[in-house]
């Protein structure tokens, strides 16, 4: 597996077409190791990334772009195209309530947290509906039980949340503002 030599031009073009097709057709982001399966010859991560950056460049002035998200690479329509896409499908997804958003923020920034932790920070009870909304969107999940009386569930955010916000990692979440006092 060559580390840096780069690929012959023809093979490169062929691979680019296959990669582009797979990325366009895949219902989810593709990881580097998945994409390596698409090449008949062994392909180094470095060569693969070079190809991905080239595809990214090919799409530079189009309405669709290739982005890297937490679970891999995928194509998305650029946000400024949304106004046009909304004309085709005028049903906007509902905006989430403040209760849902605050619960999500607490899980995102304090994870893993129990329902009790969330209630403590918000100062009010958290409805099951709120948690269900986030779970069914695939944004949060139970990752275990806390070893305290009652063994409450521990919630964390998912890769899908990062994907849906077009982020590669949790650290890319906006800072919640200057920390005022340490918790």
């Amino acid at each position, binding site marked *: 597996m060559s580390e840096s030599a780069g690929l012959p031009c023809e093979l490169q073009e062929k691979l680019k077409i296959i990669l582009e097709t797979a990325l366009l057709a895949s219902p989810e982001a593709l990881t580097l190791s998945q994409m390596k399966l698409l090449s008949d010859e062994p392909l180094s991560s470095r060569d693969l990334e070079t190809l991905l950056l080239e595809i990214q460049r090919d799409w530079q002035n189009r309405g669709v772009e290739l982005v890297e998200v937490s679970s891999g690479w995928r194509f998305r329509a650029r946000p400024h195209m949304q106004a046009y896409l909304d004309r085709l499908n005028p049903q906007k997804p509902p905006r989430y309530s403040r209760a849902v958003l605050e619960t999500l923020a607490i899980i995102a920034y304090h994870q893993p947290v129990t329902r009790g932790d969330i209630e403590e920070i918000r100062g*009010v009870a958290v409805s099951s509906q709120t948690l269900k909304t986030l779970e069914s969107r695939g944004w949060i999940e139970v990752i275990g039980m806390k070893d305290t009386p009652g063994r409450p569930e521990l919630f964390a955010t998912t890769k899908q949340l990062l994907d849906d916000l077009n982020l590669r990692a949790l650290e890319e979440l906006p800072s919640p503002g200057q920390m005022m006092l340490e918790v």
Partner: protein
Amino acid sequence: MTGDTFIASIHGEPLKSLPQDLYIPPDALELVLDAFQGPLDLLLYLIRKHNLDVLDIPMAELTRQYLEYIELLQEHRLELAAEYLLMAAMLIEIKSRLLLPKPPKTLDEEVEDPRAELMRRLQEYEQMKLAAQKLDQMPQAGRDFEFIQVMVEQKFERLPEVTLDDLRMAWLNLLERARVHTHHTVKREALSVREQMSHILRCLQGGDFVSFDSLFDLNGGVPRLIVTFVAMLELAKEYLLEIQQSETFGNIYVRISRAAM
């Protein structure tokens, strides 16, 4: 919430004193409650509205406003969540502790400000409240942009693949079986001849006479010429070809035999 003072009327009764700056739609005081995410949110609202410092909350003022607010809500028989009443009790407790004379400092022990816990909770809550707003402002899949998924027709049924080895094994099996049943004789003729036979028949599909010469690939080398010739003899032997020559040394013409068409 707007900047205007709004006097609402509930069940026909005008409301006398509403928290300033608070928008209350008529006949819907519940919405006031809904506008806040809980007592911490309400306290933050009061602190921010009066431009108070979270780190140095004037407890007397804050407590007074808070109590005023929940009294108003209670007067109108609105069910207050227990958290609001709990917070009221906590505020009163902090306020009364601040009013009590401070005990003399003992040794180096710091006397804890009774407001500290409340301050901590308010700050933590406010931070998450702002974080929630920031999260909501981020472009979100399905709302602000779409992921692409080009359709893949599942109609194409997956076709079985055959490798050279599969073919070879199938043929070997056949030969093996044929050897067991010796009355079947199977022989593998030179493939090139067999292939050329198919090729010639294909060339003659039209049914017309074709010039004998044109069936030979002159660029294919001597072996190819011989194979083509042998293939033609094989085909003639099997009555698949008609070969005609009208005069000695004249042009030879070949066509697929009527029977073979």
